């Protein structure tokens, strides 16, 4: 704790939701008939440094949104320490420096884009002229300058996401926290948002965002943490995480059935179908043996490519190490 350039510091952060029978506690589904405790976040540590784009990656229900909500003061943690800019996250001065986009943002649907941004600006105590100037800047940035006169109830999911992004950038925050910002956007919208996120970093801001869309994180993040079942499974820069230990060789094969390949390489390789071909992915050290076996089986090797492990591979590997974090309490 206490690093000079650390923007978010989290230590031993934990959240346990408790409930009775049919009560819904937290974002996780609870079966009937039991008194339950759900450990949504199981004691995590995180450090996000100034100027980073930090990707918080995990499958649905992994604990991403609960962690973010604890940082944003929406949920009280059961245990642990959180600091943003070295101070408590619930301090007014700290919050004034944060822009936040909730997951699937919901807005006052009786308002128009300019009205909702103006309302948010008032909560940041921005003077009227500054609010108007900033709104004039943001509406074109998120592509909503032509929808200013529509009420938000007429907006599509993607348009609501865009107004949410404008809301998150309204106060020119030093830290931008985005919960699943790319969901609900079409490919062009996603590209535009990725550009906006990178532009925030170029302005010296820190961006912390969660996603389960690996390609987006891989494209723009400086650092990644993978969370699953409330536990951080991996953390580091992409270069650190996708290191040379996990170099793989991709062998494209024709003339041997998938069943035979799966049977023969069950323990050492992944086998995938690509049309009439099969793709065999093996560790670098096993490639010579694999090629020999394929030739012995009468197969034709159509191509051999050495490749680095992808974030998807790392994610799958991390998720495979998962342990249950949901349990019963009492009897």
């Amino acid at each position, binding site marked *: 704790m206490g690093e000079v350039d650390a923007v978010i510091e989290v230590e031993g952060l934990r959240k346990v939701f408790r409930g009775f029978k049919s009560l819904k506690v*937290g974002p996780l589904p609870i079966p009937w008939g039991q008194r339950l405790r759900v450990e949504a976040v199981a004691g995590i540590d995180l450090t996000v440094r100034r100027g980073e784009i930090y990707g918080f990656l995990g499958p649905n229900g992994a604990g991403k949104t609960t962690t973010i909500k604890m940082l944003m003061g929406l949920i009280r943690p059961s245990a642990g320490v959180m600091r943003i800019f070295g101070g408590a996250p619930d301090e007014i*001065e700290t919050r*004034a420096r944060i822009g*936040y986009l909730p997951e699937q*943002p919901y807005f006052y649907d009786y308002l128009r884009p300019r009205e909702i941004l103006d309302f948010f600006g008032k909560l940041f105590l921005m003077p009227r002229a500054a609010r108007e100037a900033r709104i004039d800047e943001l509406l074109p940035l998120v592509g909503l300058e032509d929808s200013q006169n529509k009420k938000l109830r007429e907006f599509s999911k993607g348009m609501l996401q865009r107004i949410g992004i404008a809301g998150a950038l309204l106060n020119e925050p030093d830290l931008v*926290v985005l919960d699943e910002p790319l969901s609900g956007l079409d490919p062009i919208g996603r590209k535009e948002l990725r550009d906006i996120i990178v532009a925030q970093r170029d302005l010296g801001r820190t961006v912390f965002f969660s996603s389960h869309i690996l390609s987006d994180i891989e494209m723009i993040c400086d650092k990644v943490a993978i969370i699953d079942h409330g536990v951080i499974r991996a953390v580091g820069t992409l270069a650190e995480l996708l290191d040379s230990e996990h170099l793989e060789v991709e062998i494209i094969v024709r003339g041997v059935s998938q069943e035979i390949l799966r049977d023969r390489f069950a323990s050492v390789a992944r086998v995938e179908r690509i049309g009439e071909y099969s793709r065999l992915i093996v560790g670098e050290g096993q490639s010579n043996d694999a090629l020999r076996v394929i030739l012995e089986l009468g197969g034709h090797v159509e191509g051999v490519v050495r490749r680095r492990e992808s974030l998807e591979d790392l994610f799958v590997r991390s998720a495979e190490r998962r342990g249950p974090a949901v349990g019963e309490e009492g009897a």
Partner: protein
Amino acid sequence: MKRRRSGAWRFTALRVAALAGNTFKEAVRNRAFIGLMFLAGAFLAFSLVLSSLAVTGQGNRVLLDFGFFSISLFGVLIAIVMGAILLHKEIDKKTIFTIIPKPVHRFEVVLGKYFGMLAILIVEVGVLSVLWLGLLWLKGAPVTPEIGKALLLIFLEIVLITAVALMFSSFSRPVLTGILATGVFIVGRVVYLVGEMLTARGGLFVDHPGLRPFGEAVVRVVPDLRVFDGSQEVLLEIPIRGSYLVSATGYCMSYVLVLLALSVLLFQRRDFT
């Protein structure tokens, strides 16, 4: 130090005003509110018909009585409906997710909702009062300052019931909030009877002494809403003294402060999942 503190309160006031303004906007753009306002107006207009059917010489009395009844009824109804819906809607529709992470204190969110609702009720009571006074003037009924004082008392009752509804809505769902707040309103209107029964030499609490603590608790906790009924004084042409208005305001405010403090405490502890 003092200066810094006064600055903090000014900032709180600005944020509460922004939140209240948004609550006000939400209500006036809500069809239920507009519908209730039209219904209240129609109710008042109906008093004209009733007054024309009244026994000779009693027409103005019917107009007065029905006017007080309508303004009070619709004020309390709107207070309970808005109190039950507005805060809950904020949580249910998840718009609260965009508010709490902003540089606002949770108590400011509660106060913003409350003052927003009061602003709506000022409009409601104001519009209906002007309409009603216009009807009285048209029918040639005397428009006295006592009527204004009685309307102020009705508004104090609505201010209190709004705080009751907000307090219940900070932990329960709208239907339950509506039932509980309506219950407080009804019991509050007759709580003086419970007080009289407790001092009586016979009756329920003498026949069933086990119920006595319950009766005493009701009298202590539930506000006596009869305090805010000035209609009889107007009808009987008894003046409503300024000192009475001050003490009624103090009575209302003491309840409002306790109810708002409870609402803040309950809201402060909530997780927004």
